């Protein structure tokens, strides 16, 4: 389990308009590409230094490829990073067809089985 690596993915994709567009269009290819390149560069894109030991678990990779924010919430990926990146990907389309905040409300509804329970921790 590498919550850190999942969060690093969300952090780096959300801050880069080109990577974000690629994550929307072809998440499978983007996740594979990121895991082999930027994800392994020390910190936020060191040109030389590599982190050799980080990788996704299969379930983490699947959740990222499928934009499965429920699974990401349940594995303790950071709530702010998740919400921000999936708003970037889905909010405009949802708002245009179903009205403002419709994506955010669907997001909440899909997590409603957690109401009244302690959420999975985002601590690393």
């Amino acid at each position: 389990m590498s919550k850190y690596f999942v969060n690093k993915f969300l952090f780096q994709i959300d801050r880069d308009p080109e990577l974000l567009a690629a994550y929307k269009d072809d998440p499978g290819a983007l996740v594979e590409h990121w895991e082999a390149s930027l994800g392994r560069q020390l910190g936020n894109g060191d040109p030389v230094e590599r982190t050799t030991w980080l990788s996704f678990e299969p379930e983490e990779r699947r959740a990222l490829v499928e934009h499965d924010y429920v699974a990401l919430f349940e594995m303790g990926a950071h709530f702010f990073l998740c919400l921000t990146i999936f708003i970037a990907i889905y909010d405009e389309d949802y708002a245009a067809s179903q009205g403002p905040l419709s994506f955010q409300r669907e997001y909440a509804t899909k997590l409603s089985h957690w109401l009244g329970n302690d959420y999975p921790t985002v601590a690393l």
Partner: protein
Amino acid sequence: MAELSAVLATTHHPFFLKATELTPPEERIPQAAEWKRKVEAYRETLTAAQPDILVMVGADHFHQFFHDNYPTFLIGKQPTYDATFYNEEREFSIPKYVLDGHEELSGFMLQGLLDRGFDFSVSHELKIDHSIICPIITTRPDADLPIVPIYTNIFAPPLPSPKRFWDLGRAIRSIIDEYPSDKKIAAVGSGHLSLELGGPRQFGETGPDPVFDRNAIEWLANGDIDAILANVTHESMSGAGNATHGFMDLILMMGIAGPEKAAYVDNLDLFHTMEAYFTWYPNGDPRKDGAR
């Protein structure tokens, strides 16, 4: 010695500008006019204090800092600060700003904090995010004063305790009081009441925990640090909403003011959050005494 002329503790709502000035009046949400009115009234509480320098308190929302190196407490020491990240502009339509910094007070503050047992990190290339730009937009939209930015970790657990935030506020207060200058300094910090982001209680009709919000407003309005320390824990904040820990920055601000009643208190029940605005005047209320 410098005069601490006002302490402001405010919630920050990144959509304020978008929901008011950036939307044509006929398309605004129903609360937009009241929201704008309350923000402008709150702004007057800072204007009246005639500050020369702003000590700003906020928290980076994974804009510059990440888990590879997340500072618990950090101060910027720069002549100039850029503000607003690409993804904040994208999501909230917050404009970019360039703010003057006050390097001398940053240095004095950093040394004073180290001397008082707060081993701060320091950045010389800090970019400001919406936790500081939102209160600039609401309380000093001309962005014409030099700032000293202080960042806290309310985001990447494990977090410091509520008591530590209070103590940090007290330390900042004593450093401002000792600063050898004839300038007037205001401290402006932002945080949250109960808040849920990326969880099942997000974007509801009210904030996730209206009871917490009511209590929190009363505690801050009365300067009641004993009630806060008796009631507010990391667990109780999580229970009120998964992002409620930003409340600790409001505790910090009350720490700068001291355990005193606020001179100005207002709040606004918005969709999905309770907004709240507090001002203390530790050296006298300039709205009563006239310009000092």
